[in-house]
Every structure is written in structure tokens, then in C-alpha cells.
């Protein structure tokens, strides 16, 4: 089964981290990514630019509406994702628990729909 692991964190909390903290965090992410790659679980994964770069688009009555910012203002923002291959939800959860941001933010675990 494939699972999308969505990484949410409050960007304001992120901004208060020191450079040293950021280096340590980066190293943790590198190690985590390497470990799921070597375990054959990794399909894709990326970090996203902050929400201030987001544009939200809707088409209503044939008109395209664009707004600056994310589709909803939330306390924590989507900051990145991993797409992984896991045996079942427990397996996916145990991968999610090792994402460094799990300790400070939230990881939403979503199974990918299978069309048969």
C-alpha cells in the first residue's frame, strides 16, 4: 500500500529556531530519508516553500479566481511530504513516527486510493 505522509508545522515556531537547530534538523532529515530509501520504502518526498508563496485557485461559473495564500488559515501549515510504500497502517505509522518534525509538528498519514 502507498501512504502519503503530510508534514505540518507552525511556520512561526520554525522561524524561532537557531541556525544550529536548523542544521541538526536537516541532518536528521537526511538520515531519515536515507534510511527509508535503503529499506525500499521511499517513493517520493519533498519540502515545500513557506505558505506565503502559496496561491489558491478556484473556478466558479467559468471564472478563475486566485487568492494569495493557502486555502485555509491553520495553526500548522503543510511544509512537506513523503510518499512511501508500507505493508499496512502500522508500518506507515512507524515510518511517520521517525520523521523529525513528528516531535514538534504533526504528521497526517493518508492511504493512497487504489483504482481497480
Amino acid at each position: 500500500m502507498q501512504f502519503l505522509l503530510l508534514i505540518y508545522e507552525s511556520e512561526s515556531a520554525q522561524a524561532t529556531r537557531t541556525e544550529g537547530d536548523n542544521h541538526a534538523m536537516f541532518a536528521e532529515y537526511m538520515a531519515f530519508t536515507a534510511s527509508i530509501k535503503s529499506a525500499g520504502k521511499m517513493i517520493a518526498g519533498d519540502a515545500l516553500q513557506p505558505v506565503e508563496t502559496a496561491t489558491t485557485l478556484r473556478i466558479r461559473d467559468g471564472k478563475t479566481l486566485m487568492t494569495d495564500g493557502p486555502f485555509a488559515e491553520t495553526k500548522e501549515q503543510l511544509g512537506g511530504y513523503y510518499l512511501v510504500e508500507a505493508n499496512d497502517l502500522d508500518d506507515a505509522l512507524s515510518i511517520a513516527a521517525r520523521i523529525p518534525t513528528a516531535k514538534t509538528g504533526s504528521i497526517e498519514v493518508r492511504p493512497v486510493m487504489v483504482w481497480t
Partner: protein
Amino acid sequence: MSVDARAELQSLIREHHAWVLARVVRQVHDLELAEDSLSRAIEAALVQWPETGVPEAPRAWLVRAARNKAIDELRRRASWAQKSRDVTLLGELDAEAGTDDVPIRDDMLRLLFTCCHPALAEDARVALTLQVVGGLQADEIARAFLVSTTTMSQRLVRAKRKIRDAGVPYRVPGPDEFGERVDGVRAVVYLVFNEGYSATHGEALVRHDLCRHAIRLGEALLELFDGDGECAGLLALMWLHESRRAARQDAAGDLVLLADQDRDRWDRGQIERGTALVTMALRRGPPGPYALQAAIAAVHANAPDAASTDWPQIVLLYDRLLAAMPTPIVALNRAVALAFARGHEVGLGAMDSLGDALAEYFLFHAARADLLRRCGRADEAVRAYERALALCRNDAEQRFLRARIAAVRGRT
């Protein structure tokens, strides 16, 4: 078939229901398919058994029949559309051809852990466990939890869909998470019991059926987890609470406090059962939270009257419980025990630091009010009782608090 004979068959089937379901779920990896297949197998049994007699091994018969119904269903689906998962499963089921030497107990454990999986909402875990493991119908569970059958059915369907679509596995957790997950299973059973024992709303102080079901589940846990100390502790705790059921309400349905209860109305048989289980739990090594709470309940249960309660012993047990479970509510209970062991003022002193954490908890204010009353601080007692009353939602408990306020006011 006579009505009696049919009822007898149904109760025989009910006894095997959860076990058969557990086995079929493992074979077909799909709770809904397993349930549907089992219902059809039961229909067949109700037609065939009265003619041919009940088979020698009814459980094996039902497993075989349900499995065949599942194969039929999968064949039907596979011919509609070549669903790859169904076809693979069909191949597996054909290959196994009825040989199955996995102990059925393991199947039951798998199913139990699935129903109590932390990825499911708490109310869904409770409902699912009662239905799947406890063998209750959706309408029975709905009545017990005071919601409509539609709401309860939707809750159950949603939970089963999540299990299927989110890939919640049917497995016994590995050693690294086993302890935590067994805690979760015990918590579900205790939630069922507490919902029945101290209904948070409505007229009924005790919804007795739920307590009975929780105890039955507790017995199943103790057997499934091979005499585990905390499972013994949980079952002991439920028996010891249950033993006081008849004495908890007076003829008018009003709440009677432990100290004022007529101890002749406590069920001695249940107390003995609970006490024996506490002893067993304590012999199994360092006691956990359930065993300690049960031990406290056993000290109360075995005191001939309120005055001869061994309060110092209870304080010691609360000290250990607080170390294992450092929550403000445990600290509150310890403070009450301390008040009886070493004086009301000492107890009040121990409560002082809990006011912030428990500001919205009515039992905190009620317990404080009781100690203030005993110290003769009537005005403060009335204020604390009134705060408790404002926060309390159970009718019987509200009546009790009003009576206390009137009594304290009457004396000043």
C-alpha cells in the same frame, strides 16, 4: 422448529460467534466480508441443524460454511470485474483448502487489537469491540450509549471502512509496542464498564447491561492474555465496583456514598471473586494501575464497616498508584484517603495544590466541600458544593449535592 429450539440454537451460535468471526477475518482479511459470510452461514445452520442435528464441532462447521460463502462472494465479484485483490485472495483461500493450524486464540487476539486500534476514534473502538468481540447487535449498543440505532450503525460502518481503506492490519503488535497496545485494549473495556457504572448523563445511575458486558470482555482478556496481572487487576476492579451496585442507590434512586452504604447489600460472592483476582494480580510482579486500584477497592470491600477501614493501607496504595499514574484525579483520591488517615485538615491541605488542574471537575469541589463540612467550615462548604452542583450533569448526583447544601445550611 419450535421457538424454544430456535432460541437455543441461536444462543449456541452466539457463543461461537466472535471466535468464528476472528478466524474468518484472518482468512479473508476483510471484516465486512467476514461478517456477511458468517451471517449467511448462520442462516444456513438455522435451516440445516434442526434436520441433521447440531454438528459435533459447530465452530469448525461455521468456519467452513462462512469461508465457502466468502469464496462464493469473491467468485461473484471476480466475475463482475477482475478485481486483482479479490482474485489473489480467492487463490489463497482455494490453496489453503480448509487446513488451518493457527490457534484460534491468536485469531481472536488479532481481531481484538484491530478493534482497539488507536487510529480509530475512541467511541468507535468501544462500539466495535462490543459488536465484534462482545457479539452485541448495533441496536443494543445504541440503546446502551443513548444514541439512535442509525447513529450507531453509521459509527460502526465508518470504523470498518477505515480499517479496510486505511490498511489497519489484523495483527498482534510486536514487542516494542505490545505493552502500550494492551493498555489500549484494557482502556476500551474499562470505558465500557464506566459508561455503564456512572452514566455521565440521564436518569439511570447504573446502566447495568454495559457493566455485565464489560466484565465478560474482561474475563475474555484475562484468558486471552494468559493471566496477565493488569488484566486480572482490571477484572478485579470491575467485580469489586459491581459488588456495591445494589447499595449505591437508595429506594428513591439517590446516590449513597461508600461510607453510608448498607454493607449487607454488597455482593459477597463478587467481593470474593474480586479479592481473589487482586491477590493473583499482586503475585504476578510489581502491580500496575489497575491492580493497585483494585487493591484499594478490595481494602474497602473487606472492611466490616466504614469506621474500621484501613485508611493508612489505602494511603500507601495511593502513593504507589500516584507514582505509576501521576494524574490530578489520583492525587485527589489520595488526598481524601489522607484526610481519613491523618485528619481532615491534612486532606484539605493536600487538595490545595490541585485547585487549578481540577477547577472544572465536579468531584473535586464535592470532595473539598465534604472535608470543609467535616471541619465545621460551613460557608466555605456551601460555596464548594454549589460549584460542584454547577458542574455536575448526572441527575442522581445533582440531587445528592442539593441535599447536602440544604443539610449544611440547616445546621448554621
